[in-house]
């Protein structure tokens, strides 16, 4: 399976959000980095088919896709900046609703999706009563409930505590190993690089790096982003610590 963006350009009024971006996403995780306003979320919207590019096209295995195609929509899952959950419904009802729309209402799916992100205890709670991190976990479960082949994640680690972030890392790694496509947009270079097979960096709407994750050091990515260096890896999950050590050319300095 291969998702491809060809010559993607998109503007909001006079502002070019994305300019002639070419990207090939194979099975596994593609991490997309970039400073604020680099065009990461726009790229995600174009790849998901939510928005039509002004120029260029998105193809899955060589076939053009768009959000007008119900078959394509059934194959994707998305986690955005906002939870996308109905506040007056419980987490379980939210997931059942979206699973039913996707034709995936078999019993056990909701429980399995919640368990995958460590959110089983949230099932009977209303979405409006959840904390930021709990809402994020519930949103992830919603995106996973129909077992999508392509998963788009926009800053999925925001608001997650260390345990939940580790659980998410595990979910994404496992899906990547199963041959699913995951496009991960994040500011967290260390964690994103550790999870990814491939990384891309956007800056001012242009792609400035696109390579195997192993070939890109954290410092190079950060330099391309023009952002401050990442914090000590001490506060990161297991994958983050491994990656930070590798990027520095050493293991963690601490025992």
């Amino acid at each position: 399976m291969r998702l491809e963006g060809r010559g993607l350009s998109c503007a909001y009024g006079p502002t070019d959000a994305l300019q002639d971006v070419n990207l090939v996403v194979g099975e596994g995780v593609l991490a997309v980095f970039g400073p604020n306003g680099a065009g990461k979320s726009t790229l995600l919207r174009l790849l998901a088919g939510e928005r039509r590019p002004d120029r260029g096209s998105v193809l899955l295995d060589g076939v053009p896709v768009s959000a007008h195609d119900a078959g394509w929509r059934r194959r994707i899952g998305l986690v955005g900046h906002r939870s996308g959950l109905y506040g007056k419904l419980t987490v379980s009802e939210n997931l059942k609703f979206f699973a039913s729309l996707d034709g995936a209402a078999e019993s056990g799916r909701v429980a399995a999706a919640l368990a995958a992100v460590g959110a089983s205890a949230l099932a009977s709670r209303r979405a409006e009563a959840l904390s930021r991190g709990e809402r994020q976990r519930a949103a992830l479960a919603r995106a996973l409930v129909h077992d999508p082949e392509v998963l788009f994640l926009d800053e999925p680690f925001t608001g997650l505590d260390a345990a939940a972030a580790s659980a998410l890392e595990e979910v994404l790694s496992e899906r990547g190993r199963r041959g699913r496509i995951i496009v991960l947009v994040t500011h967290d270079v260390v964690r994103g690089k550790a999870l990814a097979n491939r990384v891309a960096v956007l800056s001012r709407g242009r792609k400035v790096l696109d390579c195997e994750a192993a070939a890109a050091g954290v410092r190079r990515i950060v330099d391309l982003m023009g952002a401050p260096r990442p914090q000590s890896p001490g506060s990161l999950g297991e994958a983050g610590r491994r990656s930070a050590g590798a990027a520095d050319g050493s293991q963690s300095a601490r025992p």
Partner: protein
Amino acid sequence: MLRWAWLIAVKDLRIEFRARGRFLAMIAFVLLAGFLFAVSLDRTRVDARDVAGPLVWLVMLFASTAGAGRAFDAEDEAGAFRHLLLAPAPRPAIFLGKAAANAALVAAVAAAAFAAFALFLGIRAPGALASHAGVLLPGVIGLAATGTFFGRISAHSSLGDTLLPVLTFPLLVPMMFFGSTGTARLLMERPWSEVAGFVRLLWAFAVGSMAAGSLLFRHVVDD
């Protein structure tokens, strides 16, 4: 198509039932309107039945307008509409589901209005209730469809809910005229043959607005 519409309608009604605020506000409005007319109407000069018909339709109009706005508020609250659009449900099914939920609420408010005005204005609804339902039903459908379609447009607009009545009320003037006249005539115990023409026009509007809304909804929600 209908399966998706059903799922969306049930979801909207469940949210509405749990929020309760809008429905209770409408019922309070109905009771207040009935009470005010009951105490202020000089019944030696005005037949309450002449007033009750237009009043029921006015309440339905407000209910549909408020309902459409609120239905999309719940969708936009946490960005859920984005995910609804990314689900494989066809756009017409989303429209039909949301319009059906709105229609159910408008129908409930219309029934409450009928009961309240009968109580406060001392109106005995003559003949079969089916006759009144026959006039109200196409009105409920037409109001719900129009409100849902333009509700989405106004939710997108910077003017928000202010825009909704501006867009819908001019379109709804003919339907309000046919409907309120039909209901008033039934209350005056006129024969069905006198309202049958109005009912046909109401059904034409209801079917037309549902069809147009279903066909055009994707142009409103997709870029």
